[in-house]
């Protein structure tokens, strides 16, 4: 297994990383520990791994976890059913069990010629025992294949990113081995930089009006799903496509109290309804007399 990498992640032309995030990423990379990333949905947790891989020029292995996912699937799977079928059909491959061992994402990341980036996406979706089953694998970067009696060791210690949406508590033993970063919802300034990265040369006026409108919507109390960065980017794309003038987004314009194309920001019927009601009340209160 090779030594630790010296490459540094400093954000990229498609991804804005705050100073604290970069520090966490680099610390995890330098010390060769997995980085656990949490944060509101739509703040770019999954994208982080993709961008780090791109920035470091490393191959990326994405392992998306489902509720039925098992830790074993990331290592390898023994396809007993095919083997049984082959045996009944008299296939010659049956004799070698290795033909029926299907390597998982972790195995493939271990086998990579260069240091790889491994993304374990939404680890909290899986069963509660899932992280515990990966302790040794992530710690020592090796595992044992019982069927072929073979020890798989990582050639280069992969850079591991793990994302979680907090649906389940992760076990302490697992957390101890990780670095942790919580991606905060970006403030207005960072948001401006993010938009700039995605839509360079956006008219200043439109951008500031759009951001103001966006944060106004986020401030509405009681929203079930607050719009996040990815929704803002979608919305701006729509605004550009429809060529909406910046004035139409201004708060003091009574017609614009509901921002145009708000469907991109609010994803929930109740939220839209609530928002419309609030705007209506607001307008009535604003009327003199």
């Amino acid at each position, binding site marked *: 297994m090779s030594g630790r990498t010296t490459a540094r992640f400093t954000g990229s032309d498609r991804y804005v990383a705050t100073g604290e995030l970069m520090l966490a990423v680099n610390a995890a990379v330098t*010390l060769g520990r997995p980085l656990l990333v949490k944060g509101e949905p739509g703040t770019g947790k999954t994208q982080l791994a993709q961008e780090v891989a791109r920035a470091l020029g490393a191959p990326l292995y994405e392992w998306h976890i489902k509720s039925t996912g098992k830790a074993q699937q990331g290592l390898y799977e023994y396809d007993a059913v095919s083997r049984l079928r082959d045996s009944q059909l008299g296939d010659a491959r049956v004799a070698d069990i290795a033909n029926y061992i299907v390597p998982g994402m972790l195995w493939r990341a271990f086998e990579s010629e260069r240091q790889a980036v491994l993304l374990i996406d939404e680890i909290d979706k899986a069963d509660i025992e899932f992280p515990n089953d990966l302790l040794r694998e992530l710690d020592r970067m090796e595992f044992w294949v019982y069927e072929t009696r073979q020890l798989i060791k990582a050639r280069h210690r992969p850079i591991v990113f793990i994302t979680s949406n907090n649906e389940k508590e992760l076990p302490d033993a697992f957390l101890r081995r990780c670095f942790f970063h919580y991606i905060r919802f970006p403030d207005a300034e960072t948001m401006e930089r993010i938009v700039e990265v995605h839509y360079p040369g956006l008219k200043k006026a439109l951008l500031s009006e759009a951001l103001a409108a966006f944060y106004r919507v986020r401030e509405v109390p009681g929203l079930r799903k607050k719009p996040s960065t990815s929704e803002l980017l979608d919305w701006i794309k729509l605004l550009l496509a429809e060529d909406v003038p910046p004035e139409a987004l201004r708060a003091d314009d009574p017609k614009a109290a509901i921002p145009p194309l708000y469907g991109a920001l609010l994803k929930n019927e109740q939220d839209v309804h609530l928002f419309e009601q609030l705007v209506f009340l607001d307008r009535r209160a604003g009327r003199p007399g």
Partner: protein
Amino acid sequence: MLIRFFQMLRAAGVPVSITEFLTLLEALKTGTGTHAAPECVPVPVSPVEKFYYLARATLVKDERHYDRFDRVFAAHFKGAELAFEALLAAEVPADWLRDALRLQLSDEEKAKIEALGGWDALMETLRRRLAEQKARHQGGSKWIGTGGTSPFGAHGYHPEGVRMGQDGGGSRRAVKVWDRREFANLDDSVELGTRNVKLALRRLRRFARQGAAEQLDLDATIDGTARKAGLLDIRMVPERHNAVKVLLFLDIGGSMEDHVRICEELFSAARSEFKHLEYFYFHNFVYESVWKDNRRRHRERTPLTEVLRTYGHDYKLIVVGDATMSPYEIVQPGGSIEHWNEEPGAVWMKRLLASYPRHAWLNPEPRERWDYTPSIRITRELFEERMFPLTLEGLDRAMRSLQ
């Protein structure tokens, strides 16, 4: 110095382990925190801030603990920034860290003393500085002492409104990152409110839904294999969902209104996850009858015996109430403040509990006050200590005790 910081974190209820502490020292040793190329960092980050972020990433593994970490950090490093800048910039301290690490590995206790002794001078200035700050930090040190279990803990000394603008060009901003307390909302020992109701909901969902693992459908497999003339045909079925039935009793009236509203919202939002959810209201304590509609409470009441008859033993009973009243209302016949009850409330409650062996009481009153209120003591005895504060953490524990 860092060992004391480590101990303070533990005392404050941040679950830090020695492994994590050693990782932090290792990170400092390899210079992750100190030499991050500053020209690439768009937001100016001072050495102290780097140390802050590095320590947070290594030691804290849950955003709920960010706020506690911030407070300990503020209390411990108050006024120490200058010392820190020197420490992280200079070459010599790196040696010290290495030494400290070596000592750490050999004998923890010894290392502690040695390290403290070696840093006498610095510790002295630190202590003096900390002492100077005492006056302003009374709340802080008290908080550390009590271990952060108070549900009021998060209402801190630092008003939230002081967040500084983005003009922080220099390394020493007026308000430090850890002083902004941006993560106060994420602390789980705070009372349930509209802000963290979402998180609470997730806990409830977790309680209601357990795993979706697949299992072998033996009958279908045998059948399928036989149909294919012996060719194996494996059939899987999703494991049956564990659907939970909940009986919710809510204390309504007076000080309870707000809490009850939150609880109602909470449970009805989680409703789709439960197989059945029924709620009933009562005032102060449970007697012969409860009601479903608070506006028509005097006309339409449901006798408790009917509740006991209708809903089976597999229902889980959750009572939400402050349990704060005169003890007579629980133990005496005729103790109710609203009507003449033939049998004391305790008797009715015992019937309810016997009928629903899985039960828990959620109490919005702060935990510290429980011991001083006789009626809470009596209720807790009735519930065999299964009373939990109405905080995220309490909700969590309550759900666990119900499983």
